[in-house]
């Protein structure tokens, strides 16, 4: 190429590049913070996989009203609960179509067979598709579904009956969870089974959801097309997930216009000061970050020592540094968005009293281990701040950072003295915060990271699960929160706000209370 031609080419490319990053109207790009583990969503339990594989592709039996925790009809139009609370009869919606793709064309509408397939496949070990999940179904097991569900049976093509072993009030909310009640196409599964390619359910998914799966470039891009045959209002845009685990890269892509929506995190919110093209959307996910002190270990078994650790913490600076101020110091373990949250419980910093309590508990100066995940720098900062806070009252702490999976495993086994964790609500029900994390059963099973087993607390939880009366349940949960707080079963830190950068051309984006994204109503100008 001659020098002149080269120069012309360079000029042309730079000019056209100013249009780079401008999305064609009708496509919304989301910079997600990780790659999904797979598209067979019931096999997995992370928010990232749920965002990519659950909400866009599948519908659940019941749904939450977008952005809230109010249960409303999903693939089941109505539901009846028997008087004793153990039999749920679901009346299914007519005229719902499964996705049509190059690899599957449905010949019938959604009906009870699909529900049976979806639920029995997880619950029944002898089901032909059960073994596709090499790691099992951790969510199902974690919510104790195998012990809870007695049977799932078909009454007729549009009616399904689920029988439980005991009354469980949170069950209605459970039916809105994508990792529990996502409905798959039994017909597609049969087609794959006959071809001997059942694993394809994980790489080429079929659902009834608002978006249809188009392609996945591993660790890079997921492409979805709007489902024009959706039973509810079809989306007006196609969807692209650009997988960008690095927070600073997400910010840069947002600014460059490569992504229209992305989670930026409170501590990075300042990066958009004065940028007129990006709006910051703040939402209140149902989450609490907390410390799990191992109450089976020395010193930590004394509730005075635990309290000392709690009141030594400078939550104000913690919130400022770790979340950029986009968080609220937490009092009760239950976050403010969940009903029965007790707002009267608060922790105020008191260094002097903390020092006294430390002395009273007989702490001898030995070093405690403090586990946390190494995923992002904001957590690292948090551990260093806490380390500093506790040094001030004479408590020595050694930080050990590790990957998330290893953190769960080791804290589950109780190897830690202290651990920095956070819990996201799965279904908006208060029980979901307490039972998996603080019950005596969970202490055995590894879910109760503080190994704190208190019989009175356990009894309260059981009573609340057994009654469907919301008012009564509310009263019980308030008592439970107060007991937990008084005993310092765990040390709460903050309820963070999710901060997302949304390009101002985007309308209708909804952040779910569970930390996820809902693109069903999105429009791009």
């Amino acid at each position, binding site marked *: 190429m001659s020098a002149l031609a080269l120069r012309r080419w360079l000029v042309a490319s730079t000019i056209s590049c100013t249009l780079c990053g401008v999305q064609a109207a009708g496509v919304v790009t989301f910079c997600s913070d990780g790659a999904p583990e797979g598209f067979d969503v019931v096999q997995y339990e992370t928010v990232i996989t749920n965002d990519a594989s659950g909400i866009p592709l599948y519908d659940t039996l019941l749904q939450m009203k977008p952005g809230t925790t109010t249960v409303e009809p999903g693939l089941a139009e109505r539901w009846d609960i028997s008087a004793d609370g153990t039999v749920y009869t679901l009346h299914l919606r007519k005229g719902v179509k499964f996705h049509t793709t190059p690899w599957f064309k449905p010949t019938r509408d959604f009906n009870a067979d699909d529900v049976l397939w979806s639920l029995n496949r997880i619950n029944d070990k002898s089901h032909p598709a059960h073994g596709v999940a090499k790691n099992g179904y951790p969510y199902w097991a974690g919510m104790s579904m195998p012990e809870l569900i007695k049977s799932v049976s078909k009454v007729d093509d549009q009616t399904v009956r689920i029988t439980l072993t005991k009354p469980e009030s949170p069950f209605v909310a459970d039916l809105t969870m994508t990792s529990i009640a996502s409905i798959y196409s039994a017909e597609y599964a049969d087609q794959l089974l006959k071809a001997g390619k059942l694993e394809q359910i*994980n790489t080429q998914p079929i659902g009834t959801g608002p978006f249809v799966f188009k392609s996945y470039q591993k660790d890079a891009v997921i*492409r979805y097309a709007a489902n024009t045959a959706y039973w509810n209002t079809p989306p007006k845009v196609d969807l692209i997930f650009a997988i960008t685990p690095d927070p600073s890269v997400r910010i840069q892509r947002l600014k460059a216009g490569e992504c229209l929506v992305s989670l930026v995190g409170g501590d990075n919110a300042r990066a958009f000061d004065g940028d007129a093209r990006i709006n910051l959307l703040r939402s209140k996910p149902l989450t609490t970050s907390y410390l799990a002190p191992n109450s089976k270990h020395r010193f930590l078994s004394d509730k005075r020592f635990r309290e000392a650790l709690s009141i030594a913490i400078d939550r104000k600076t913690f919130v400022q540094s770790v979340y950029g101020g986009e968080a609220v110091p937490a009092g009760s373990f239950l976050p403010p968005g969940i009903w029965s949250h007790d707002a009267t419980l608060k922790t105020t910093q008191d260094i002097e009293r903390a020092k006294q309590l430390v002395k009273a508990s007989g702490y001898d100066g030995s070093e405690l281990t403090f586990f946390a995940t190494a995923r992002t720098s904001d957590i690292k900062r948090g551990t260093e701040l806490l380390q500093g806070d506790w040094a001030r009252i004479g408590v020595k702490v050694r930080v050990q950072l590790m990957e998330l999976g290893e953190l769960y495993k080791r804290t589950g086994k109780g190897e830690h003295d202290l651990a920095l964790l956070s819990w996201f609500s799965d279904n908006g029900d208060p029980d979901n915060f307490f039972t998996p994390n603080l019950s005596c059963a969970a202490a055995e099973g590894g879910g109760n990271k503080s190994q704190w087993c208190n019989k009175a607390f356990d009894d309260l939880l059981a009573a609340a699960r057994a009654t469907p009366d919301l008012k009564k349940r509310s009263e019980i949960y308030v008592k439970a929160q107060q007991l937990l707080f008084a005993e310092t079963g765990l040390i709460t830190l903050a309820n963070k706000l999710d901060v997302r950068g949304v390009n101002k051309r985007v309308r209708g984006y909804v952040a779910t209370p569970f930390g996820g994204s809902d693109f069903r109503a999105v429009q791009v100008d």
Partner: protein
Amino acid sequence: MFGFILKRLALVVPTFIGITLLAFSLIHLIPGDPVQVMAGERRLDPAFHAEVLHRLGLDRPLWEQYGSYLWKSMHLDLGESFVTHEAVWSEFLKLFPATVELSICALFIATVVGLLAGVLAAIKRGSVLDHGVMGLSLTGFSMPIFWWGLLLIMFCSVNMREWAPAWALPVSGRMALEFDIAPRTGFMLIDAWLSGEEGAFRSALSHLVLPAIVLGTVPLAVIARMTRSSMLEVLREDYVRTAKAKGLSPTRVVFVHALRNALVPVITVIGLLVGTLLGGAVLTETIFSWPGIGKWLIDAISRRDYPVVQGGILITATLVIVVNLLVDLMYAVVNPRIRHAK
């Protein structure tokens, strides 16, 4: 010649077996139960635990496990990822072209610029240019390359977007998102060209620039220094002085006679650089979110995804051995003394 090839191949076999031992033992050296890792934050059913242990063959005697591992590896069955349940070999195949594309571009830049710089420095020995080239190359391999990458991102993407947006380079990924390119070969440049879409090729190229420069910096420095030494050595040789005395023009002397001979050790070094490239790819891919095998391995190690770690180590090491073998053979073809040595 044939004998030499056989002898070299024979040397490779024990090394390869050693590598399989290394990869295999990894999963057993790490403290704790690998199956427990899969439990996540909720409890792991003990019956299920035993079932998985059995399915992965972790309950059989060690030597039996190793034997089965060796056999399966020969058939490219490297197990499945604990996280995605996809076959390790097929995950590797999906991600490998990205790393290869990046490495080839990095090597290309390193070779072209390195050779040029080395030759110029050798010809103008002792001059400012010489010292400059040597100084810059020494700086090049004294920098932490992840820092160098961050600096480049800072200047060429972030700050450039404020100063001269048309010249700003993309921050991450292989291709602008508005292009949906069919992955025919896995090489984005080729696929973009084949797709015929307007601006796709340019986009792929602009995404390659920064990562390739970062990855190619250390090889560039090595090649520049190596070329310079080699050229200096050759330029002193008698036959070069003879050529000069005979009246051949200096350019002809340099390029026809000297360079050809000076290139030989440089080619050897290029072969050895494969290891450096694969190692450097880990850091470069992390910084630029480049979906290749370097990033894949790092993620797998932090997630304790052992089948991927084992498979990745095995494949990487085998690749390095194969490339070194080829380079050795090529060197022997070029230099008969080696063939008949010992």
